[in-house]
Every structure is written in structure tokens, then in C-alpha cells.
């Protein structure tokens, strides 16, 4: 335990906590926007896996990380369009169709990996871009300003998403469509059009979140994301459907993961106990849901398909 409370160990833990929070943050920001428009996208985990494999495979074959991100974005758009058809046109029960997306992502990435890659081949990981000046500050600089660009990007998205949801006409439409779609429709707001946009954004961010996981690990394996996508959905509830809240939750879970990793590396928890420690995020999620539920109302039209004929 003594080893853990040194400045260097704490700096490493906090810095890696922020890095590990990034996939949660990207996915939960997208999911926040989607749920504000009344769409529950339970397929985040599956889309993350697809994005992760797409990015991994692109770097493996083409050796370009920017291209890998573009591929992840494209995968997100395709999956978004598919989920929009399922949700908006076929009006499937959202609590279950997302499980289908998850299973598809889980199975397909495993299949593609076995068929096209075979044995895990490491790829180049994301390089940190220290911010000049700021990164030289002792402790704070190391914790906050020596990350890869995707970490900065994800955290920059928080104010952008807040502004988008609460200050723009589009954000107003999103909220209207998520609370009372019938009223929004009467006023000429396209309910399904608005939801189409939020679904695509949510899927692109989920796919990017998966790409971040793959590019930070520098490898791929079956079920690489290990439930992170599901936790990201819970973080939307944690954050009371606000981007800032999602960020707080993502950081909390990032730090928990960093602690578990760090304690494992320092030998504080070892062997079979690491499996027990791996339960921590899921247990924490349930505890958090207990405290959050019944306090903040969810968007009134969440999971309710819009059908003018009803």
C-alpha cells in the first residue's frame, strides 16, 4: 500500500484515469444526445467493438491513425443509419434491439479478427501530444497536459455538446422531440429527422470511443471493450442527461479502472483477487444508479417510438 501513496504513483494513476475516462466520455456524450431526443441506443458496446476493430485493422494494414479514425467514423455512420432504420422505421423495442447490435458487434468483430488477422499483432499506439508550456508544470502538467489528442478532443466536446443541447435551435428541437414528440411535430419539427441526426452522432461517437480503446491498447482481442459501452449508457443516467454530468461519471470510472490497474501492477491485488477487483465498475454502476434514480426525471419520451397515426 505504501508504494501507492507516492507522488509518482499518484500522478501515473490520475493521468491514466483521465486517459481511461476518454472512451467512456465519448460514448456517453453521444448517448446523452441520443437519449435527450428520446432514443435509447443500447448497442453502444457493439458499435464500440466494431469501431475498435475497424481502427485496429486500418492501422494494421495502412499504418495510418488518422485514416483509422475516419474508418471508425464511417462505421459509426453506417451503424447509425442501420439503427435509425430499426428504431425509426421498424419502431423496434429499443431495450432489446440494442442487444442485437451488441451481439452483432461482438460476434462480427471476433469473426473478422479470426478470419483476417488470426494472432494478435500489436500496432502503434497513440502518441501523447504534450501541450507546450502547460505540460511543463510539475504534477498538474503531467496529469492534465501530456495526453494524446483524442483525450483533449473528448474533453473539448463537453462544452460543445452542452452548448449544442442548451443554446442552439437544434438542441431545442432535440429536447422537444425527447420530451413531447407530438407537440414538437405540431410545431413542424421533424421528430424522426431530429432523431436520425442524434442517432448518427451517438453511433459515430461510440465507434470513435471503441477506436480510442484499440489505439490506446495497441491491439485487438475478442470482446476488447469488456462492457465499457454498457457502463457508458449508465453514465448518461449518472450525469442526469447532461454532458458535464457524463464527464464527471466518466472521470470517476476512469479513476476506478486506473486504480484497479495500478494496484494490480504494484502487486497490492493479485491473482484471483483481480477478478474480484474487475467487478468494481459494475458494482459502482449499480450503487450510482441507486442514488441517481428517482431524483432526476429521464426524457419523457425515452424509448417511445413516434408514430403520427397513433
Amino acid at each position, binding site marked *: 500500500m505504501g508504494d501507492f501513496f507516492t507522488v509518482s504513483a499518484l500522478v501515473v494513476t490520475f493521468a491514466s484515469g483521465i486517459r481511461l475516462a476518454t472512451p467512456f466520455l465519448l460514448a456517453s456524450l453521444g448517448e446523452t444526445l441520443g437519449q435527450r431526443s428520446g432514443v435509447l441506443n443500447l448497442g453502444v458496446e*457493439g458499435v464500440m467493438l466494431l469501431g475498435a476493430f475497424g481502427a485496429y485493422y486500418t492501422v494494421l494494414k495502412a499504418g495510418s491513425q488518422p485514416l483509422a479514425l475516419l474508418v471508425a467514423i464511417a462505421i459509426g455512420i453506417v451503424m447509425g443509419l442501420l439503427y435509425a432504420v430499426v428504431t425509426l422505421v*421498424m419502431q*423496434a423495442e429499443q*431495450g432489446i*434491439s440494442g442487444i442485437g447490435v451488441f451481439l452483432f458487434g461482438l460476434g462480427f468483430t471476433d469473426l473478422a479478427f*479470426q478470419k483476417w488477422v488470426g494472432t494478435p499483432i500489436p500496432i502503434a499506439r497513440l502518441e501523447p501530444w504534450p501541450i507546450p508550456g502547460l505540460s511543463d508544470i510539475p504534477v498538474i502538467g503531467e496529469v492534465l497536459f501530456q495526453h494524446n489528442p483524442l483525450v483533449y478532443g473528448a474533453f473539448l466536446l463537453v462544452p460543445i455538446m452542452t452548448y449544442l443541447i442548451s443554446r442552439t435551435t437544434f438542441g431545442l428541437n432535440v429536447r422537444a422531440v425527447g420530451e413531447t414528440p407530438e407537440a414538437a411535430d405540431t410545431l413542424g419539427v421533424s421528430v424522426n429527422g431530429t432523431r436520425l441526426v442524434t442517432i448518427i452522432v451517438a453511433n459515430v461517437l461510440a465507434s470513435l470511443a471503441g477506436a480510442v480503446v484499440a489505439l490506446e491498447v495497441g491491439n485487438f482481442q*475478442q470482446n476488447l471493450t469488456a462492457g465499457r459501452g454498457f457502463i457508458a449508457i449508465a453514465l448518461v443516467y449518472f450525469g442526469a442527461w447532461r454532458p458535464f454530468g457524463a464527464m464527471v461519471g466518466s472521470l470517476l470510472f476512469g479513476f476506478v479502472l486506473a486504480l484497479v490497474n495500478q494496484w494490480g501492477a504494484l502487486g497490492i491485488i493479485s491473482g484471483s483477487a483481480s*477478478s474480484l477487483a474487475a467487478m468494481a465498475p459494475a458494482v459502482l*454502476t449499480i450503487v450510482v444508479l441507486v442514488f441517481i434514480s428517482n431524483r432526476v426525471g429521464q426524457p419523457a419520451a425515452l424509448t417511445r417510438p413516434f408514430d403520427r397515426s397513433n
Partner: protein
Amino acid sequence: MTVRGVKNDAEVELEHSAASSLARLRPFVGLAVPLLAVAAALAVGAIMLLALGTSPIEGYRAMITGSLGGADKLADTAIKAMPLMLVGVGICIAFRAGVINIGGEGQIIAGAILSTSTALLVPDLPSAILIPMVLIAGAIGGGIWGAIPGGLKAYLGVNEILSTIMMNIIAAHFLSFLLQDLLIAEGDVKIQQTERLSENADLPLLPGGTRLHLGFIIALLVAVAAYILLFRSTLGVRLRAVGHNPHASRYAGMPVQRSIVEALAFSGACAGIAGAVLVFGSQSHRLIGEGGAAGFTQSAGFNGIVTALFGGLHPLATVPASFLFGAMLNGGIAMQRAVQVPSAMIIALNGVVVIFVVGSLRLRERLQRWFDDRVGIETSKERA
């Protein structure tokens, strides 16, 4: 459309016969729509096979002969169908009560852990006592794992979709912990598995010379029991009423909160029995954690959901539905051998099936309503 009252007799006559033939067609809509959904999913699977550079015809042929060709293959299909049937029947109970149970995976594992522990604690009891004991232990394990998110939803308002998913993750890690620690087989084996469990707890093989075992009968009995519970008991009326309209049920004096807990507990108990059947009906007669939790559960916790939906959330209709999906799983293994496509393909395909079947439910509902409207109009005309 002609306005009512200006039709001549011949037209009315014609519509009567049309209405009665419509009425005859109606039950087929309930079956045809999900079947078409599965066919569409298989078409997507064919595209996936093509993308992987294999012939879909060859792949699917291997799948069909591998799952249906001969008594042994059929028995293996039934073995794959068992956990789907048990989980699916449980899903019927939960969904009918308006509770979405995504926690089948965790409930299977909880049932497997408790039943395995029972067999390890009292291995010397005679089969006639030990087998019912391990099955009941499985039901209790799964029931508890379901009741926890049930209680969280009923009394604390925690979304059950999220909590059941988290309970899956917790159970998977807990299983991994137990198999590395408390329950690991003696000796320095590095495989995550228990020792060979008591022979007295082995589910006996059914006559016929196949690998089919008692678990099959148990699954059928559970399906019938769930049917009686849902449609022939006061508890079932209450659960379905709560699922249909919780607010009205509350005004009618029904204990809505308790009903939610009960529904998830029963649902989990069915999955828990599946866990026990997977352990004591397996060929190794061990609880094995190799290949992760999904390796043990065969993803039945998720696949059971689509099985139940395919069966229209009716426990007895879930039985044939489980055979369809059991055949897909069993055939997937044959396909893997025949055309070298990893069996992960089947997980992906199942995902597509879930999406298509769930997506088709609204269509089925609409078509059935359309039939009911047509038949209703014609019948009322006939009365007039």
C-alpha cells in the same frame, strides 16, 4: 371503398367469405412475420459468408445437415435448445410483467455456481435426492440474481435494463474468481474449472442411445409450469395486469412493487435452472470457465430473449422457437467444421436475428390489428 349500405347483396356475400378467410389467415401472420424476419437475417448471414469468401449455400447446407440430419444431430440440437427454452420461458414471465430482463447471462451463472456448490458440499447423497437438490439450488441462485435488480427497480426505481446488464458483468467476474480460487480443481491445473462433480448429480441420459439427457424433460416441465403460472393462476393474472398497466393495477389494489420482484425472481429462477442443466448435463460434468463466461452460458441469456420474442412471449410457443435457434447454434458448429468459418459467425447472426425479429414485432402487431379490424367490421355487418 364503397360506403356502407350501398353495396348490393352479392358484394356483401363476397365480403363475408373474404372476412372468414381473413379470419382463418390471421394465426399465420403471427408465425409468418417472425419466420420472414429469420429468413431475412439468414440472408444477411449469406452476405456475411460471401464477404468472408465462403459459399453461403455450402455453409447453410452444412448448417442444416449438421443440426437436423439424423437422431444424434437432432439430439444435439435439442441439447442446444434446452438453455434457450429455459431462459426464454423465464423471459416470457418477466416481459409479460413489463420488466425487461437482460440479465439471463448472470442468472445462468448464479444458478450454476449455487448448484455446483451444492454438489460439492453434499456429493454423497443418492441421485434421487441430489438431482432435485442441484436443480432447486440452480433455481434459487438464478432467482436471487433476478430478485436483486427486481428489488432495485421496484423499491428504488433503478432501471432494470442497466442493472441486469451490470449483474451479468458482476457474475462473470465472480465466476472467474471462484474458478481461480475457491472452486478450482485440485492439483496444479491452470484451467479454470471445478473437479469432476459427483456422479450422483449427473443428469441421466434419456433412452434412445443419444446424448439427450433429463434436462430436456425438465425444460419442458418448466415451460408448462410457466404457462400455468402465467395463464392459469391468480399470480399470473396479477403479473400480466401489472405488465399491461401498472397504474391501473395499483388502483385495483395489486402489489405492483412485489409483482416486479416476483416476475424477475421467477424469470431468474428459470435461467438458474438452465445454469444447473448446463453443468450437470454437460459431458465433462464440471463447471468450466474457459473461453470466458460466454463460453459457459453459450450466450443463452441473450439468445433466450430472441427465442421468447419469436414465440410471442408465450411459454409453450417458446418450446418450438428454442428448437429453431438450437438448430442454428448446433448447425453453426457444423458450418465451422465444413467451411472453416469461426462459430463467432453465429453470435453475429443471432444479433441480426434479434434486430430483425424485434423490428418485425410492430409489423406483426399492425397486421394482426388490420385483420382484427377487417374481421370485426364484417362480423358486425353480418349481425346487423
